[in-house]
């Protein structure tokens, strides 16, 4: 899935320059005819959005209170199951692990690279390399890294780069994707970080370049060290961008699916909510539980939805 920034208005600087496109009273004369045109312009989009986003969202909430075939009303039973079943709790735990490590990893590494590559002669090249995984599919990235993690027993020649490095230093080859609960989940999260760091870097780098150079120079002249300049001047200025990027990563990671589906399909204790939902739907044929899982994802993201709407309203006011 391509990146979608949830609350752009927060740093929508041009918003202030934009001439608010509301019609002035003097132009009201033409309103009647343009009203009809407006309907012509918006109706195809609104129809499709209603059919593909709004109606199903409401219907899924409804279905989550019914049984596996959506025939009998079961009340909260699906939700009770979600919080009682061992395998569900494991998926929640893993999503939490993803949430913390993935978000920290992508944002911090992105920030580090944005700052370090600034004014580097090879800046464009380095950025292209880091950004590249963003262009390929997560399924493709899954295969790439499954090969990196490939395992051969000790003594046999390794074909995965990571185990080659491990054996080179005299270690035993490691089953990166098998050994749980920490190692394999971290191995999967690494793939996520590899994919998304470039995205964070590009946005943070643009914000970093927007900091007035005079400000930084002045601090240096006053004898501030690089770290102090970053911590007391640069970071406060780009704080809002960091916040937006972090929010985007949180929303992305809650829905994480492709990487896990392709690399382990949730086995060896690497299950996540979105993958489990797919299994409930197609493997266990339980529409009620699958819907309940979707609703849970929705509820986790709901604060961000409300927040972005509120920010947008403030910005437009």
């Amino acid at each position, binding site marked *: 899935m391509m990146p979608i*920034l949830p609350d752009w208005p927060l740093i929508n600087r041009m918003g202030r320059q934009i001439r608010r*496109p509301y019609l002035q009273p003097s132009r009201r004369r033409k309103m009647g005819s343009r009203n009809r045109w407006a309907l012509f312009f918006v109706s195809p989009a609104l129809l499709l959005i209603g059919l*593909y*986003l709004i109606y199903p969202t409401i219907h899924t909430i409804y279905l989550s209170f019914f049984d596996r075939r959506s025939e009998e009303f079961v009340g909260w039973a699906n939700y009770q199951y979600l919080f009682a079943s061992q395998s569900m709790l494991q998926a929640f735990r893993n999503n939490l692990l993803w949430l913390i490590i993935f978000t920290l990893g992508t944002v911090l590494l992105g920030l580090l690279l944005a700052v370090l590559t600034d004014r580097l002669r090879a800046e464009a090249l380095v950025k292209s390399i880091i950004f590249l995984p963003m262009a*390929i599919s997560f399924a493709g990235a899954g295969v790439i890294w499954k*090969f*990196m993690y490939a395992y051969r027993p000790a003594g046999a020649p390794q074909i995965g780069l990571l185990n080659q490095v491990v054996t080179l230093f005299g270690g035993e080859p490691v089953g990166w994707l098998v050994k749980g609960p920490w190692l394999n989940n971290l191995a999967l999260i690494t793939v996520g970080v590899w994919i998304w760091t470039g995205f964070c870097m590009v946005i943070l780098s643009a914000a970093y370049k927007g900091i007035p150079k005079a400000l930084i120079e002045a601090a240096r002249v006053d004898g501030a060290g690089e770290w102090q300049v970053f911590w007391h001047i640069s970071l406060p200025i780009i704080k809002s961008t960091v916040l937006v990027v972090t929010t985007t990563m949180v929303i992305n990671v809650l829905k994480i699916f*492709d990487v896990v589906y*392709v690399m382990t399909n949730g086995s060896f204790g690497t299950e996540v909510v979105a993958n489990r939902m797919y299994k409930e739907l197609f493997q266990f044929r339980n529409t009620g539980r699958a819907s309940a899982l979707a609703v849970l994802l929705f509820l986790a993201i709901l604060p961000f939805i409300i927040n972005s709407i509120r920010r947008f309203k403030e910005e437009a006011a």
Partner: protein
Amino acid sequence: MMRRLLYLVILLICLLWILPTLGLLISSLRPAAAVANSGWWTVFGNPLNWSQFTLANYQHVLGQSGLARSFVNSFIITLPATILPMLFGAFAAFAFAWLKFPGRNLLFLVLVGLLVVPLQMTLIPILRLYSRTGLAGSFIGIWLAHTGYGLPFAIYLLRNFFSSLPAEIFEAAYIDGASPVGAFFRLALPMSVPALASLAIFQFLWVWNDLLVALIYLGGNPRVAPLTLALSNLVGSYGQEWHILTAAAFVSMVVPLIVFFSLQRYFVRGILAGAIKG
């Protein structure tokens, strides 16, 4: 000293980012036995020996594994699924930016909220609808689904761009007797080519790289499977045959890589369009 250390850190990070993909590419060009019995880095032992490379894996995946068909499918799916949301999105964005209609502000707020609604919330009802109407496993079904899912983002991006255009030109056009349709096609669209280009790249890569939507709506029908779906099926059936998997993965990546390298500027601009400049 600090400077050296900095270069070293950046070099290491770059290696970590490029080696996985490089290893994939090299392995996809090696014979099956070589891939299974030695690491891909061994080719650097005698880099000038071209006989250690072969295109056999590509012949195999494109022919026997049916990836040629999936390659075509990916295009069949992606092109309309890029054009339709852009067209309908541009229409709606124009109305949101320059026309007044009842409920405009409220609808736009709903749209902002829909930007981040997880797709998982929509899959089950749509899948049922598709099963009943025979749209499951059909191109039309997935075109429409991607159009619906892509619209909030398209409208949001283009509305921002449209409303940054100067109001005077539209007023002048209306005084000259142009209808909103004329203003849209002759003024708004031609002036928005950069924004449209960014959006096109986004939507194209998004649909091309999508696995989830294809898996849900096309999963039951291998004849219409796009590359991502075919690749994930190969992972299931060929597990450890890396000469096949690496070649298949590279086939799925080649178009996005070309798009990325030739249009990187627009891609980055698209990301920043919302984040920094509006």
